[in-house]
């Protein structure tokens, strides 16, 4: 077992443990904070994959914005955060079964695939992923249309969310 593998296993264990806490914690603010630690673990996974930009964007967007939005939303919808009553459905075992089956099915499907245990090539020296990323985001042969459409999507989300959350007809 090499150093990279040990680091990966530690990060994966941390991520999955936090993810389990996200779906089982009763207190929703705690669940949101566990989500933050899961997301941080995922960011470390991106860093292990040499995707520097994605890793740092994960922290900026998910931890810096989405997690904050979640915490705000929890505060806005709870008069008392120490919520009584069950947090989990009566038939939680069915959900657990479906989740297990999904994982087992995915693992089974993947294990039959030829590229399953592929190893990665070394990054070439001086490999500049950000510059390549910038090029593919704006070049007409690559992804300029998704780039602009993402802007439209964000606009639609902003307008929609503002309209839905604060419809003045109900005050």
């Amino acid at each position, binding site marked *: 077992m090499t150093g990279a593998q040990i680091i990966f296993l530690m990060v994966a264990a941390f991520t999955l443990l936090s993810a389990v806490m996200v779906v089982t914690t009763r207190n929703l603010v705690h669940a949101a904070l566990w989500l933050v630690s899961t997301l941080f673990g995922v960011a470390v996974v991106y860093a292990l994959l040499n995707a520097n930009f994605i890793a740092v*964007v994960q922290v*900026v967007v998910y*931890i*810096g914005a989405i*997690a904050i939005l979640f915490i*705000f939303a929890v*505060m806005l919808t709870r008069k008392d955060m120490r919520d009584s009553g069950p947090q989990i459905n009566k038939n939680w075992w069915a959900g657990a079964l479906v989740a297990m089956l999904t994982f087992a099915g995915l693992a089974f499907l993947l294990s039959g695939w030829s590229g399953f245990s592929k190893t990665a090539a070394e990054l070439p020296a001086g490999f500049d992923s*950000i510059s390549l990323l910038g090029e593919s985001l704006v070049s007409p042969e690559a992804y300029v249309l998704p780039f602009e459409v993402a802007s439209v999507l964000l606009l639609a989300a902003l307008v929609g969310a503002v309209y839905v959350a604060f419809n003045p007809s109900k005050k």
Partner: protein
Amino acid sequence: MSFWNDPLRVAADWLQGIFVGWGMNETGAHVLVVFLGVLLLITLLMVLDIFLVWIERKVVARFQDRLGPNRLGPFGLIQPFADIIKLIIKEDTTPGDADKVVYNLAPILSMMSVLILWAVVPLAPVMLGTDLNVGVLFLIAAGAIGTLSIIMAGWASNNKFAMIGGFRQVAVMVSFEVPMLTMLLIPTIFAQSMNMNAIIDAQNVWYVWISPLGALIFLIAAIAELGRAPFDLAEGESELVSGFNIEYSGMKFGMFYAGELLHAFTFGGFWAILFFGGYRFFGLEQVSPFLAILILIIKAMLGYWVIMWVKYTMMRIRIDQMLSFNWKFLTPLSFALLLVTALMNALLASAPTWLYILGMFLANVVTGWIALEIARSATRQERERIEGPNKKVAEASH
């Protein structure tokens, strides 16, 4: 290669030799040496932080025509150490209703979010920061952890003032992050890199000359991000009795306090790196790394001094004014400036250097002037709407 020219390399090689001599393998020895280096840097920063307390108190005293600490040691220099001892031997109370784990985690994360910023600071030509090709965004990522620590502190204290203070602070921090992100794009455009080392290398002309407005907006956003006056309504001593850190005492409060001061100094440093050439000063940085570090510290101190100057000159503004100022003025202005900069950069790409600098400078000045004129006419209309259109006429007839 002597100690004078490259102290870090010499010391690292020497230490690595010792560790390898003890029977460690190369990689382990290297990691240990880097770990010790990081520990040394952060310890020095904490010592600097202690002196920042003294500097801050002395400067505010001078601004307010007082003497400041002057009893312990020469010029009161021992005073901050006495403060530290006081913080350590103070009883560390935890509110009974608090959420203990989150409550204790918040000050640690707050301090960490400041300390990790130094991972990307280039100290001298031979002491570059981590060669991270996303260095500029790293700044925002660390800030995200800081924001999170404040919301954690505010929520976990289970105190109304802490809650309101924490929420306000987070609302302000996230709002001003938009202009800050936009202004970070400007050095990125000029240097064609997000790497802090590359940004310093590319600054043959300080970026403050080609983007003075950008430097100004970055400073304003940084002050808001730091939560210092005039944007300090999270603490708002007179309204919220210290805000999010109200329930903290002893060293936990000390962590928030020290973190805030070091954060201000660090942002002074980033201001210097992004817009004032970092450690570069007319080639002096090549003489010795010690001189380069001194130049960087002086520049960072100047930036820190400007932040203090603003803090002790301006009064606190209300949260609605602050958010309006950000979303209705600063954010549109920073987008406009970004687009103007991008456009001018493309148009002047083949122009000689002096024309490029002049064009950029003028474009900035014109953008800022137009923005000010629009803001002025908008506020004039607002004033007339509130005071009534006839007020001026009535005053004139007196």
